[in-house]
Structure formats: C-alpha cells, structure tokens
C-alpha cells in the first residue's frame, strides 16, 4: 500500500458566509512529517500540533508516516481554527483507525483542545446552511454550537463533546437526537429598555415614533444629558417585530461574529464610539470582518456625537445606507455583507454643548459654524428627521412615566402595514423614490402649504420630496387616506434643515 487518501468537508468563514473547503488527507510511507497546504493562515497551520495531541490523548495513534493535508480550493485563503475536527477525522480515516465510508457526505467543523475536547467555532449557523447547500447529509460540530446550527433546517446536526465520541458515532452505536434549535426571539426580550422611561418630551417621543413608522433616519440635537442616548436606545422596542427571515439573518450575523449567546433578542442596537475607523464601521481588514453597520443589520445604528466621528468613516457609510449592503473589495475577492439598519444620530448644538441661545455658551462663531457644518456634510442628506432636544424640566422628570413601548409599537406596525400595502412587501416610506413620493395623495390645503414654501425658495427639490415622505408617514400613522394640512405642517416642522 503506497498511500491512503481520505477527504472530509469543512468550511472557512468569509465575512458572514461560510465557504466550503474540502480537506484531503494523504498518508504514505516516508520520513514522519505533517504538512498542511492550501493557503492556510497561522491558526490553520497550528492545527498540526492540536490534532497530533488530541489524537494521542484520545487513545488514537498518530501515524508516524508522511502526512500531507490539502485544503481545496487551493486558491481560497483559509482562516481560523475551525478545521481541526475535519483534519483529525480525515487523518483517522486515512490511517485506517476509523472506517467511515460516508465521511465525504458529512461536514465537520470545530476546534480541538489538546485533550481531544471540542471548542466552539464562529459562524456555526452559516456553516450548517452552507453544508445543506453543498448537499451534505449532516454536520458534526462542537456541542456548544449545536443549538445554533440547528436553526438551519433540512440538515442533520450532531454535537460532540470530544474527538473520542467519533468512533461510536461512526459505528452507529451512538445516535444522538437532533438538538433543539436556539429560540429565535422576534420581540425584544422582557426587561429590555422601554419607551416609558422617556418622561415628558412629547416632541421627541413623536419624532421617534415617526422615525420607527416610516423607517426614517433621525438626527437629535441637544445639550448633553437631555436624553438623546436614552431615546435612541428605546427605538428598537417600538420597531415592528422581526420577520422570521430577518431574525435568521440577525442570528447569522451574530453567529459569524461569535456573539450569538449575547444576542438579547429582538432587533440589534449598536452604538459604536465616535473614534471608530471606517473599517470598524462598515467592515474590512484582512481577512475582512463585519463592521458595526452589519452588526446593526435589521436594527438600529446609533451614532452619538455625530460631529466627532471621523469624516472618512461617515463617508464610508453613505453607499451602504443607500443600498442596504456593504461591499468590500480585496485582493482575495469581493465580499458582500448585509446592513439594512435604521440610522439614528445625536449631536450637541455647538462644541460646548449649551447651544448658541444659551448665554453661557462660550463657543466662537467660527467654531460653531465648523461644528454645524459637519452636521450638514457627510451623512446629512441621508437624514430625514430633525428633533431639537432640550433638558427636560424637573416637573417632567418627576412626572408620570410616558406611554409604554408596546402601545407605540402597535401604531407603528399599523402604519408599516399601510406602507407595505401601498409600496410592496418589506418597503417603507423612507425608501420611496422621488416619483413615488410625488405620487402621494395630497389634500388641497397640504399641497398649497408645500407649494407656498417651495415657491419662496425655502425648500430645495430634494427637501421637497423628503417632506412628502415624512408627511406620508404621519398620514399613515394617523390612518388617513390623503396627506392633510395638519400632517404637512408637522412634516415641515420635523424635516431636517438644509442650510447648516
């Protein structure tokens, strides 16, 4: 026997999707040697030592022969320790210690400890789905990943605690039941931040409701401590519950970023610090990783201190905001990540935070101009709503709690239903094209009001359409057929101002 060959299936994570990798193990006579080829990164190359120790410590024999492991396709970069299990299984099969004819039909993923125990990997859900797509019968992975992987339907999932369980599994002596999938929480977990905590501030509450109802991005401007962050963190609780496919996408992202257990349920809320880099915000690096924009997919991305963010980071966010996906081009290939999030931003009115109308404001006018200029640059034309936030009065803070999230969410959901009926499934008013916006039904008074302002050149063409979108959302919230004068007036007040 010159040599024995075995092949196994595993995956490498590319952004949030798993790419299939075929592990070919060749054992033949020669000086004892263990080589891994096929563009492995350092973590993959170190699998040699882990696999060797794990085999020996589980009572297997490590063949003292010439071993070559090839990871195909050879042109794809392989990263991470998730291929240990597949390499070990291939090695056992190739050295005749495991008679596993169906090895090529089973996918394996998992990291090995030196004692042969399995350690969880990132992206188990994406791997299970990729295994299903590639026609595998089942996926074997660490027990800690099993519940996560079981979210993928239509494929067998086996969780193992240690490498030593493989012989029993292969021999059919051990046939574990399919693990219970992780519960997908479509609604916010109980005890999540509730809008009732926002006391008083009726206008801010209304702005949040409108933002949620129409998917409009919102800019809050006000002094520090006025409740901007509090308000933003309550937004997920008034958004409509996740659809099943959306929840699966959220889970896939969280799984690939290794934080599925930390997912509180419902829509994600991400609030990156303003020192974040462009790559941190939209994703990037080598190998490319998902950024905050992708982590906020189907949820809320909150940019506190908008003016302090690096300009290049905000610029990088523009295209993803428009298209709902991040596209990262690297020498190794192009990567697409989902990022359909709602943008909420907060800023102080001037560098000192008090606002120009406050007599204590010490900011030089040039500084204020530059600061507010930042508001009108970068992302401004992607923002629909502006809410000026003020320090709530003592009476408001000590007053009764506001309306609870659940009640607000009912109105939001009703308004979203009307939009989907009008625009098509999954679409909201913020996404209306200019043509659609101008086709909105307007009452005579509302049309007069808008035309009056437009004629006086207080409104640009783009702002004109933005006001129409807002007014349509207000009308959907009110449950009316056509945009009335009241809704138009409110939309005019709530619009983001152009001249910064």
């Amino acid at each position, binding site marked *: 026997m010159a040599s024995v060959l075995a092949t196994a299936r595993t995956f490498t994570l590319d952004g949030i999707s798993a790419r299939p990798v075929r592990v070919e193990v060749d054992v033949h006579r020669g000086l004892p040697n263990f080589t891994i080829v096929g563009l492995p990164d350092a973590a993959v190359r170190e699998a040699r030592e882990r696999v060797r120790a794990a085999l020996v410590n589980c009572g297997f024999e490590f063949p003292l022969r010439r071993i070559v492991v090839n990871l195909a396709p050879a042109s794809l970069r392989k990263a991470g320790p998730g291929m240990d299990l597949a390499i070990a299984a291939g090695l056992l099969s190739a050295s005749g210690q495991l008679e596993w004819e169906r090895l090529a039909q089973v996918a394996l993923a998992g990291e090995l400890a030196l004692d042969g125990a399995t350690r969880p990997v990132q992206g188990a859900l994406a791997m299970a789905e990729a295994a299903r797509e590639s026609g595998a019968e089942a996926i074997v992975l660490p027990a800690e990943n099993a519940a996560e992987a079981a979210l993928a339907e239509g494929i067998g999932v086996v969780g193992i605690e240690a490498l030593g369980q493989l012989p029993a599994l292969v021999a059919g002596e051990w046939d574990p039941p399919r693990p219970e999938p992780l519960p997908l929480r479509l609604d916010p977990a109980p005890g999540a931040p509730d809008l009732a905590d926002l006391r*008083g*501030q*009726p*206008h*801010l*509450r*209304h*702005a949040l409701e409108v933002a949620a109802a129409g998917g409009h991005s919102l800019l809050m*401007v*006000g002094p520090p401590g006025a409740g901007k962050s509090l308000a933003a963190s309550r937004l997920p609780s008034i958004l409509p519950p996740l659809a099943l496919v959306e929840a699966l996408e959220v889970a896939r992202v969280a799984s690939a970023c290794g934080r599925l257990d930390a997912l509180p349920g419902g829509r994600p809320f991400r609030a990156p610090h303003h020192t974040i880099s462009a790559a941190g915000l939209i994703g990037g690096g080598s190998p490319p990783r998902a950024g905050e924009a992708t982590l906020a997919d189907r949820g809320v991305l909150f940019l506190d201190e908008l003016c302090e963010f690096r300009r290049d980071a905000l610029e990088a966010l523009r295209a993803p905001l428009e298209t709902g996906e991040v596209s990262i081009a690297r020498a190794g290939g192009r990567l697409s990540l989902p990022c359909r999030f709602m943008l909420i931003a907060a*800023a102080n*009115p001037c560098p000192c935070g008090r*606002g*120009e*109308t406050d*007599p204590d404001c010490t900011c*030089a*006018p*040039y500084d204020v101009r530059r600061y*507010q200029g930042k*508001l*009108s640059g970068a992302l401004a034309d992607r923002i629909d709503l*502006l*809410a*000026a*936030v*003020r320090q*709530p*009065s003592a009476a*408001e803070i000590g007053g009764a709690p506001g309306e609870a999230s659940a009640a607000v969410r009912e109105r939001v959901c009703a308004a979203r239903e009307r939009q989907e009926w009008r625009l098509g499934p999954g679409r909201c008013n913020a996404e209306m094209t200019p043509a659609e916006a101008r086709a909105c039904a307007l009452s005579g008074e509302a049309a007069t*009001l808008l035309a*009056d*302002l437009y004629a006086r050149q207080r409104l640009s063409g783009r702002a004109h359409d933005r006001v129409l979108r807002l007014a349509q959302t*207000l009308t959907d919230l009110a449950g009316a057929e056509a945009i009335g004068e*009241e809704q138009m*007036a*409110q939309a*005019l*007040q*709530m619009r983001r*101002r*152009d*001249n*910064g």
Partner: protein
Amino acid sequence: MVEHRACVDCLRRAWLLADLGPYVERIATGEVGSRSPELLRLSNEELVEVAAPKVAGQLLARTAALSEARLSEALEQAGCWACCRHTDVYPASLRDAADAPWALVGRGSPRLLDRIEPFETVTIVGARRATSYGREIARELGRELAAAGMIVVSGLAFGIDGCAHRGALDAGRTIAVLGCGPDVAYPNSHRSLWRRICEQGLVISELPPGATPWRWTFPARNRIMAALAGMTVVVEAASRSGSLITTDLAADLGRDLGAVPGPVTSRASAGPNGLLAAGAHVIRDAQDVLDAMLGPGRRRIEHSGPSLGSELETVLAAVEAGEVTCDGVAAVTGLSGPAAAAALARLELLGYLDCSSVGIYTRTLLPSPTGSSL
C-alpha cells in the same frame, strides 16, 4: 449715466496704500490698527516716510511710474470703476472727514453712489461673533430700512454685517465697504453674498483691485462707513470691539449713533448697552432709526403679520417667553408634540419665527396684530 473718472494722482494714492500694506501693518498694530485713520490723513510723502522710511524712495518712484493707461486697464480688467475726491460723483458726505479717501474703487452699480445722501443712508455694524438675537435684528433692520428706501451700508464681515446685507438685499439697496480690493471677496465664505451685492448693490473700497486685507485696513474702512451714513447703528458688540471704532469715528464726524439694547448679562451686547448709557439713540426696530434720522413720524413702516388663532397665539407667546424647542413649547402650552410641531411650522411659514439648522426657534421682528411684547 455719469462718467466715472478719477484723476491719476488720486488713483496712484490707492495703489500706494496697497503697496504700503505690510509697512503700515507694522506701525499701526498697537491698538489693533486703530491708529490707521489718523495715519491716512498724511500726504503720500509723509505717509511713506513714517511707515517705510528705508524704501521710501523706491515706493514713491514706483507709484509715480504708474501711467493713467495702466491704472484704467487694471480697473477694467477687475471689472471695477473709480471716482476721486475731485469729481462730482464722489459722495459729499465723505468730504466732511479730514482723512477722507482720495479715490473710491467700486464694483457694482455706480448709480448708487450718485444718489447717496447721509439722511438716506444707515450704517449697520456689529460683532462678527453675534448671537442669533443679534443676527435676527440685523437682518430685520437691514430688510425694513431697505424697504423704507434707505441705503444700508455695512462691511461684509461675518455675523451682524452679513445679516444686515442679506436683509437689505431682500428688500432694496445695500453698499458693502471692504478693507481689501472691491474685487476680493473677503471673508471667502461670503463669496456668494459678495457676488449678490455686486449685482444688486455696490461694493466700494479705497484700495485698488486685488489688494489684500490687513488688520489696519479694517479701521480704515470703518471711517468710510461712518462718514457715508447719517446714522451708525450698533447691533451687538463686545466692550472692546472694532465696531466701536466705527461709532467713535461717526461721533467725531457729528453723525447720529444708535444702539440696539440687549441683555445686560450678555457680553455680546456690552458695546451697544454702553453706548445707550452714553446717550445713543435706542433702536428697537427700523421705525426707531427712521424717527431718529428723519424726525418722528416722517416716514412710517407699515407692517404687521397676519392675525392668528388662539392656539398659534399661545405658541407664539411661549416662544416669546423663551422656549426655543418644540418640546419646550409643548411643555408650557400643554399641547401634544404633534400639535406643537404643526403650530411652529405654521408660525414659521407666516414669518413670525425662524428655525436654525439645529431646530432652535427664534422670534422674528414681525409684530403680531395683538402682540404687546414687541
């Protein structure tokens, strides 16, 4: 149209001043250039001797070598024209000053200069660092005075100056006096405003086209602003502001002074409040300016906004009482958030309120039919 010409000596003086820019800067900066109007009384030879004794001969020779043809060619290339103190079109009001500019270089409509009379001209000055209150007042003063047929003079600077020009452009005529060549838009971010004034009004300077601004050229242009108008109004200025140089110069010429009162706690209003204490006219609106200049009731500004329903009255009262955000208005009026928002939008449309780019509301000067506070 009157032929606008300037004699070659006066034009050479303008070019000499531009050449002297850095030298005068060195000797005039003791009190932020406040000495420059005194220096400008000197003849060419004296001035050169004081400012640049080492290169006096060279500078004078260079100036003397400028031919009339070259000067008019330079003016034409910059799209400018000039007039000098020896021509009829030179404003009579400028002749009052001992340090009057020899020549004026202008861009825009020279006809505005023909018509200029001190009793029909108001200079509005104030801080570059102005509050939203000051900016609003400056804009309304500019607009209403221009609408009442007055010529509004200011200096194109940030803050009060820019707002006064903008207001005046909305309704009538305005003149910008610059501390650099009239074809130089300074500050640069007021380029579009400068262009509008060139088209609809007039930009003048005593410096030739292309001259860059120096610190001393601003007090120097202030003396032109002070002399052109029958009244100088200070909207907002700190206690040691360049705007107060203008009022000092205006007072020396015997012109009227007006000041817009502000909160006594506001640093931005320290200048005008001080002037009021010293006896300047109290300027609350354009009508006060007209009364002070032309005599009470000689020319009336007729205006008042459209009448308001009770809800809008309440909201307007809340803003007048100091609520600047929609939430604040809702809190004191007891209206719901959406209702307060709609009311604010209507008041803004009717011209009673202004909204800043960060959503802060300020009251305009437009009086309401029933309002008593203004």
